[in-house]
């Protein structure tokens, strides 16, 4: 078992003929992900890494039964790609694209939710169920199947943690990168709920960062609703206020969104909080054997 993606995923790649789209399609196919279709308007008839390309998502879904979509199209066109995917009946949309204006995501988020679909991202590395489906841009080989559910707002920092877990023999059920933008489709709370319900997940790692209050919300959710052990790490403990740390969402503003506030909330919720990523495996072992 796992969450969100697995061997039954039938993946569609939007923007498949672009530089990012075509490269990562190759990587995903190579990993063994069931990539069934790609979409690039005007690209019908082509193939990318053996994957057939269609003009529209509707056509791709009709022809291939795609049920999940990953979006690599440029920021200006990405919201339209989200609408197109959901309108064609795709239930899970992963948006890798970085740099989408926040005001475009406000109606898009509400619309996707209203339609009962799920969006992951934007500005995220995607997600992976090791050995079954890599739906994103993460290096597949650092992952291994196992009992740890991982959820993170970050990219390479996640790889760092995953790598350290795999090296000590703690494989992952699913690792989800929820993205670093101010508005993201799926929050920590959403993913924590899925991991809690997933029999294959025995313990959870959440990797947060400064900005917003999603980690505080997650802490409350963990306290009330999560029975499995959770270990957390918050990046940006040394970040100053008012400065955006790379991610559009990673900014301490109005005194809210500090690492200290998030670490305190998590600690209060019984989460083992690591000071550096290297502390995560040991805390996890301790929590799991407790």
């Amino acid at each position, binding site marked *: 078992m796992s969450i969100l993606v697995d061997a039954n995923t039938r993946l569609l790649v939007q923007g498949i003929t672009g530089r990012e789209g075509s490269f990562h399609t190759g990587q995903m196919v190579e990993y063994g992900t069931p990539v069934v279709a790609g979409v690039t308007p005007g690209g019908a008839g082509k193939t990318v890494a053996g994957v057939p390309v269609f003009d529209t998502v509707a056509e791709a879904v009709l022809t291939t039964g795609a049920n999940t979509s990953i979006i690599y199209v440029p920021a200006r066109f990405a919201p339209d790609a989200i609408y197109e995917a959901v309108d064609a009946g795709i239930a899970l949309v992963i948006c890798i694209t970085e740099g989408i204006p926040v*005001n*475009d*995501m*406000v109606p898009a988020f509400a619309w996707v939710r209203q339609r009962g679909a799920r969006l992951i991202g934007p500005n995220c590395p995607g997600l992976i169920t090791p050995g079954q489906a890599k739906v994103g*841009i993460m290096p597949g080989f650092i992952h291994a199947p196992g009992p740890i559910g991982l959820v993170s707002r970050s990219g390479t920092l996640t*790889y760092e943690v995953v790598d350290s877990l795999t090296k000590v023999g703690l494989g992952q059920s699913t690792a989800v990168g929820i993205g670093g933008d101010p508005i993201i489709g799926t929050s920590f709370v959403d993913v924590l709920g899925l991991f809690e319900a997933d029999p294959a997940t025995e313990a959870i790692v959440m990797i947060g960062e400064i900005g917003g209050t*999603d980690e505080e919300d997650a802490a409350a959710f963990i306290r009330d609703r999560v029975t499995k052990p959770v270990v957390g*790490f918050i990046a940006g403990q040394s*970040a100053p206020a008012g400065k955006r740390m790379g991610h559009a969402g*990673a900014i301490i503003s109005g005194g809210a969104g500090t690492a200290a506030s998030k670490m305190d909330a998590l600690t209060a919720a019984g989460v083992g909080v690591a000071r550096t990523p290297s502390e995560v495996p040991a805390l996890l072992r301790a929590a799991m054997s407790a």
Partner: protein
Amino acid sequence: MNVHEYQAAEVLARYGIPTNEGIVVTDPEGAMEAARTLGGTVAIKAQVHSGGRGKAGGIKLAHSPEEASSAAGAILGLDIQGHVVSKVLVVPGVDIAREFYLGVILDRPNRRILVMASAEGGVDIEEVARDRPERIIRVLADPALGLQAYQARGMAFDLGLPSDKVNGFASIAAKLYRAYVDEDATLAEINPLILTGAGEWLALDSKMSFDDNALWRHDGIEAMRDPAEEDATELDARRAGISFVKLDGSIGCIVNGAGLAMATMDAVKLHGGDPANFLDVGGGASADQVAKAFELVTSDPNVRAILINIFGGITRGDIVAQGITEALGRVTVTAPIVVRLAGTNAEEGRAKLAEAGLTAVETMDEAAIQVVAAAGPN
């Protein structure tokens, strides 16, 4: 992207919000002239991208052109939270009867746009939010339909405004929301929004910030950029696709990925050092990017040692190592460098770096400890 008060006021005036129109000048003579033109009492206001102007002495009243000149003289050149004042706005003095706060901002937890108002205007709204949250009226706009008229009116009633002031307030709230959305702002704020003694509404101080990701569709916003207010190094970095934020410490950091970059800074701090910067070199970590990163980091005279932390993912560690050595061939770096390389082909990469005489380690903590040692005590 931030703009000056007078620019924010210009934007809001285009949306039909009554603002206190003034004259921007850069020297005391200009201020004198402006005061003469406006007549009567004027206010001289520092134009810097920074809060706390009042407390810092950046806002003064002047009752004559001569006073205006000397006030401007006192304000120009002031350093307000690191921003040196090079322009002042001269505005007519106003008869203030009541002060309100009105702001539009993204409400992240709700993923909607939030309109806030308070009868406690003219003060720090974050302080009100913290100490007397019940004094702030909050309304979420519908994600697709926007702020409805009844919502704006409801805020006015909740502020306790008399009936004949309700529509005026609601109209300004609707316009401020419209400006926020249409201009892709991340903040649109009037503080204070006042009622004058004559019962007229006036936006006395306006503030706007804009979404960097949406500037491509707003030529007018980009044109308001004040290069003097931007950190030249950060700007330079952005053009090269590098996220860079200058800090106060002595250890330069070059990292791939924003989250990892923050975690690296945290590790430096944890092990007793002080990061000199946040730097996300981006995905590829090519020789060009790394060379640029070296330039950015070494331009800071405080930097005494450099930590490169790369997690090789799709990009292989040996390729990154080659990029680093190539970059060092192009840029002269005198500070000691510690490289931490992990992930794909990291071992080969570290071997290559060692050959080139660089300290290459396997873990982040190890790297942080070594670089702190290399930088020496503060």
